[in-house]
């Protein structure tokens, strides 16, 4: 057997340039997969959460079951969640997305509903007095006023999705989680650290991006503060 090479990979150092150069493509692919899984699941979650929150706001009787069911979904351990969904979706990225969508619902529905409930009754009555129908009231008055709370929920849901994607590694679709999981098995310090740091960077970047979007969408909140 030949002698072991003497580089930072063989020495198992936490920070290792050779790791970055030899795994460049692998890291890029993992980041790409991580971003896709996060973005798709949060967007799908949003598309489902908005109608659910509106329903819970309009029909008082539906609030308790909607909140109850989405909260219970959040308590299912992720390993169990993927196993339960496996027969439906097979081993695929869709399986991971479906799990993440279900998890994101709790945070999104709760926050959007809180935002809708915070719309002052006088404002709604004023809009009705101006001849606004229910649809126009929702789209041009209630939803915009609910935006700050809804965006707060969206930011939490996104950051939580970034970290939950890693669990997808058990079915081979975990983005950076695939690398973290493989690295933990072999005490590969550079791989675990690099992939974890990239995860944190993605979470921070996504949060800042959404914060920027929120400020663009709700200019009035800044004007009031100034």
């Amino acid at each position: 057997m030949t002698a072991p090479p003497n580089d930072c990979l063989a020495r198992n150092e936490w920070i290792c340039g050779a790791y970055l150069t030899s795994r460049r493509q692998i890291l890029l692919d993992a980041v790409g997969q991580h971003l896709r899984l996060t973005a798709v699941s949060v967007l799908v979650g949003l598309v489902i959460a908005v109608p659910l929150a509106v329903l819970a706001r309009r029909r008082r009787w539906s609030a308790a079951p909607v909140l109850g069911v989405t909260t219970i979904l959040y308590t299912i351990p992720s390993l169990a969640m993927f196993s339960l969904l496996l027969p439906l979706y097979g081993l695929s990225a869709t399986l991971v997305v479906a799990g993440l969508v279900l998890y994101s619902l709790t945070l999104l529905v709760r926050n959007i509903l809180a935002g809708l409930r915070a719309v002052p009754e006088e404002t709604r009555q004023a809009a009705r007095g101006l001849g606004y129908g229910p649809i126009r009231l929702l789209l041009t008055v209630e939803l915009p006023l609910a935006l700050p709370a809804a965006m707060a929920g969206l930011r939490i849901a996104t950051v939580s999705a970034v970290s939950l994607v890693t669990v997808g590694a058990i079915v081979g679709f975990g983005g950076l989680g695939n690398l973290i999981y493989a690295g933990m098995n072999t005490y590969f310090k550079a791989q675990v650290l690099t992939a974890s740091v990239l995860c944190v960077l993605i979470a921070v970047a996504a949060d800042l991006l959404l914060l920027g979007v929120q400020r663009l969408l709700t200019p009035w909140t800044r004007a009031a503060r100034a």
Partner: protein
Amino acid sequence: MRLRTAAGAVLLTLAACTTGPSLENRGAVTAPPGDSRHLTIGSAGFTESDLLAQMYAQLLNQAGYKTSLITVANRELYEPALESGQIDVVPEYAATFADWLNAKTNGPDAPPVGSPDLATTMRALRRLATPRGLTVLDPGRAVDQNAFAVTAAYARQHHLRTLSDLGASGLKVRLAAGDECVQRPYCEPGLKKVYGIDITGIDPKGVGTTQAKRAVQSGQDQMVLTTTTDATLDQFGLVLLADDRHLQNADYVVPVVNRARAGSERVIKTLGKLNEVLTTADLASMNQQVDSWRRLAQDVAGTCLRDKGLLK
């Protein structure tokens, strides 16, 4: 690889009631051997499995197949996918896989079918795998089975080369192993009955973990349970004692394929060429390059295939 099945126990209980061959995929089970152009190779996520999957993929690529790799950490998840054709080829271990299929088919309390005898194990494995639409290829020379190691100094001092030597020496031995060692026939009961080794206790530090090897190195324990493809023994000053009375199950490396998608003569021939030349020492060396030197499994697998003249 045996530890990992324990990690999947939760999944097993959840997935067991929803998987397995059903009326809907009866067609796939009885279908003739197929030859799909695109093959998905599964890896169970640990180094040796990754390496074997990489070698299978590179050989099949050369034979004209398009291949993709998927890593699925638990047998409870990848075996159903192999039956349904989402995964087409998986590297497996004959006795372990036979026992796993046996437990899945006949319940967890069924008597084990894996045995130290390769032919018996292969017969049992094929009997269980064939009705599920799986073809088990012929086993090669590489074996990843349980093995016992002591420090080189200890072996020299007491003139030990085999487990029989250790039994004959009458030495008191504390064994670093998984806590399941107390019950498993290949472990404590077998060492006592077959070899007459005086096991005074089991130190539950896991199978072949760094802590377990350190415990033996420091003299806290005398012997450690590990596997035959462990290439880090040198680092800890450990040597294997030969299993001269064949206590260990025949965990030969066998490729398992989905018959309807990858059961063709060409696939069997392509993978068979590797099985004929790949040895246990090759696996150990490759494991070391990936685990200790942190080379890429893809590169290590490719180099091995080129060295063997299988890849151009």
